[in-house]
């Protein structure tokens, strides 16, 4: 009888044993206490202050990293100090960083230079030369299947601007609308900012917008990289030439550094690494440029500021 009881107990306990047979957890991994929170270690001050280079969001942040990394690496080697790449969503933010001295060098948009020069004494360092010239255009683009042939045809349509202070992406197309005696807010059914030129191209290609104006350099570069875009996007208007987006330094950058950087940029084609670096950027070379090259831009920008 006792054995029978034992047997019954065993049978009855069987389901309980099931509960104990839990799946095994990973063993041998150190235990981490998720609720034992400690302050994060403060960033140690760098032994050598890095050269901080801002790149305006002419193209998307990822595209900038791909394009500019070889150049920045090269500069770091030559200057024998770390180079840090800084990106911000808007051109205005980059200008602020330059004004505050948080950034030493910047690749800025044409209108950002015009504004920066006027606001806090941004200085020209060099300008890229593309196709043998230091000019660029604003391309008015629409989807390939769009019937629109000019800005007038885009009335009542959706339109994408790149950045509020982008020259090719907003100032120039806005001037075209103004030439039609209209205000962009009323002229277009809808407008929005893409914050980079390649995103604007993509927005048009994907049919997200009926039109956009983009930097011709970015456009040519994008088409070169992705020939399939030609089938999706077409240029219906090209602006007159404007001064190319320059390389600038902040107002407080030491003249020695400025001279050193100027020399490094201009000497690039003669170095072994130079051609590859320039190819990644889509530039022929860097050249010196005068402020006068941006006068035509300044006129339009002033008109824009007055209109606003």
């Amino acid at each position, binding site marked *: 009888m006792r054995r029978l009881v034992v047997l019954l107990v065993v*049978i009855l306990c069987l389901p309980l044993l099931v509960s104990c047979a839990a799946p095994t957890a990973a063993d041998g991994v150190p235990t*981490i206490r998720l609720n034992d929170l400690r302050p994060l270690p403060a960033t140690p001050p760098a032994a050598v202050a890095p050269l901080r280079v801002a790149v305006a969001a002419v193209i998307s942040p990822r595209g900038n990293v791909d394009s500019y990394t070889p150049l920045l690496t090269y500069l770091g080697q030559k200057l024998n100090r770390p180079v840090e790449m800084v990106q*911000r969503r808007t051109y205005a933010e980059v200008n602020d960083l330059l004004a505050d001295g948080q950034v030493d060098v910047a690749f800025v948009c044409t209108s950002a230079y015009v504004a920066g020069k006027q606001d806090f004494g941004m200085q020209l360092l060099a300008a890229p030369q593309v196709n043998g010239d230091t000019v660029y255009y604003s391309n008015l683009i629409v989807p390939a299947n769009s019937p629109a042939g000019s800005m007038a045809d885009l009335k009542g349509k959706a339109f994408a601007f790149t950045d509020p202070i982008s020259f090719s992406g907003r100032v120039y197309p806005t001037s075209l609308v103004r030439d039609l005696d209209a205000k962009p807010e009323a002229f277009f059914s809808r407008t929005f900012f893409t914050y980079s030129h390649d995103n604007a191209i993509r927005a048009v290609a994907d049919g997200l917008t009926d039109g956009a104006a983009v930097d011709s350099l970015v456009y040519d570069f994008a088409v070169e990289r992705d020939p399939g875009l030609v089938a999706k996007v077409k240029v219906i208007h090209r602006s007159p030439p404007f001064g190319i987006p320059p390389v600038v330094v902040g107002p407080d950058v030491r003249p020695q550094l400025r001279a050193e950087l100027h020399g490094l940029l201009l000497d690039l084609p003669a170095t072994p690494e130079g051609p590859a670096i320039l190819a990644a950027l889509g530039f022929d070379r860097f050249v010196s440029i005068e402020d006068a090259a941006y006068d035509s831009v300044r006129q339009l920008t002033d008109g824009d500021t007055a209109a606003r």
Partner: protein
Amino acid sequence: MTTPAGSLIPSFADSLTRPSAASLPTRAWGLISAVNLRTKILGMVLALVLILGSGVTLQVRATLSRTLMAQLQEESVSLGRDLAARSTDPLLINDLYNILQLLRETQMNNPDVRYAFILDHNGRVVAHTFSGGFPADLVSANAVAADTHHHTTSIRTEEGVVWDTAVPIFDGKAGTARIGLSEARMRATVAAITTRLLLTTALVSLVGILAAIFLTWLLTRPVRQLVEATEAVRRGDFSPRVRRWADDELGELADAFNTMTADLARADAERQEREQMRAFYLRQIITAQEEERKRIARELHDETGQALASVMVGLRNVEEASSAAEVHTRLADLRGVASATLENVRRLALELRPSVLDDLGLVAALRRYATEYTARFKIPVAVQIIGLDDWRLASEIETALYRIVQEALTNVAKYARATHVSVLLERRDGQINAIIEDNGCGFDAEGVLRSGAAENRLGLYGMRERAELIGGTLAVESQTGCGTTVYVRVPVGE
């Protein structure tokens, strides 16, 4: 019970593994057979349900754990990759607020996410979902090479296992996204389902117990009845009949039992009848014996006594005889009386037990009896013997046949008013056939054998009893007015 030295196994396991003289099957059978049917069925049902329930629960639990664990890992990877993709641009443009929003949204929309954080390309935490600090060593708990897709590892925490996935952001150029998915919810789900399955098992067990009780009642009810009926039969009561509850083996058993009790009842009735007959016959034998003694006494008194009295009177007459001639005459008379008396005594002796039966055998005895019968009753008897002339049978058979023929002939003389009797004795095929046939008035043989008057005509029963005693049979054929035939058949062997 001795515990093996050094063994720390508790007594329960010990009782199972304890070496025993009896083999395991024997002991198991001993255990099973020791309990009643109800416990057996109950145990069977319970064991089946519990084993099945446990097996299913184990299986489901294991499968579920495996599946959910794999899902969790996949979810961890997919969320990590999503996070890495979505945080690339904000990270590149240093939009920390956006990154934090992204992390918080990710955690809010996925309850399994315990934490998420983003490291910049220098390995510094730029945004995380912890508030008020950051767990030590968490950053170093997982790492991923810039050129790999992702890396997932399990991290033990005080809250259980967390599956941590590290995904390089923008091929590691921007940093690393880390996300940790807790197993807690998965474990809770598994535990809930296990509980539910166990509850179901318990419920089914309960139903099983009820079903087993019902089944037991269904099964044992006819068995119990059979047992009761068997008890009644053992006490000699053949009346109970068991009900046939179902058309199964137990039903067949009930049928067989009922047939058996019916047969037993019939056999018992026959036995009792025979018993009564035997008792009755015994009384009759005793009566007959007394009758025989009375007859012998009467004969001795009436005939032999009378004769001897006559002899006494004659002797006195001889004494008183006056002349020698008269003596002579009287002595001659006396001799005649003595001779007649002697004849009477011889006949008496012969009737009691014919010594010729012992000395010369059945055939000679029958022939002599027939001769005397004819002489006595004036009824001619034709005796025909076939295949038996020199054949001597066992003495009890010879006696029985002799008495049967004698009784039959006596009946003929007493009742038949026949003018002729024939006796046929024939040996054929290892048996003796005896046929006694008369041409008398006959009687209703069946009626006599059945009626209460049988006692008065017990000769018939006596004849039958004698025949059956030696393994034979006896039949009487008679109809009023058409004579009577008695057939006797006795096996005697070759």
